[in-house]
């Protein structure tokens, strides 16, 4: 999937992946896609909750080898 910006949140625990995602989205334009890679299994539910509450769209989420990859489209 194409993306405009990437955030490496590997090794970080709650709430840092969410806080850094929020920061990364801040200077992006509407419709642009942010890729986030995390190793925190808690970030799976948290990212869904973040998307739901902020209106940014969670386009896809996948897991491979203990890494969680999210694509978020900015509202």
């Amino acid at each position, binding site marked *: 999937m194409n993306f405009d910006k990437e955030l490496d949140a590997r*090794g*970080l*625990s*709650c*709430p*840092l992946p*969410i*806080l850094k*995602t*929020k920061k990364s989205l801040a200077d992006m334009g509407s419709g642009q896609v942010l890729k986030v890679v995390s*190793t*925190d299994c808690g970030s799976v539910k948290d990212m869904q909750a*973040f998307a739901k*509450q*902020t209106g940014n769209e969670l386009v896809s989420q996948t897991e491979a080898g203990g890494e969680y990859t999210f694509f978020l489209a900015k509202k």
Partner: protein
Amino acid sequence: MSKKMAIIATKGTLDMAYPPFILGSTAAALGYDVQIFFTFYGLQLLRKDISDVKISPLANPAMPMPIPMPVMVQMLPGMESMATMMMKEKLKKHGVAPLEQLRELCLEADVKFIACQMTVDLFEFDKSDFIDNVEYGGAATFMEFAGETDICLFV
């Protein structure tokens, strides 16, 4: 209008310092308007230097320990510092942010910190020991905001 959350932070130990800063920064990231009211021992978390905030296994039987430790041993000098050091290493290993960073993230996200004026006076704290981004107020100041919140927590 954005949702609101208020937290009352009353404790100044390493473990109990985390919930207000984690929930405050996260709520702010989710678009909440957040205020944290620091009172009694919670005031310690507003000091410029919070690197000496400690955790104690004493009177804290739920704290997981690498080996069972009788209370008599926990009382020994240096045990608190050792427990704090071990806890900080654990936090670091698991990628949990240091308190200083979470506090900074709260401030960056416009979380408002209010220090309880009464307890500042009671404990004879010097305001110059506190970070700059603090407002001072009393219970009524807090209630004005808390009365309109969607979430209000006591930590």
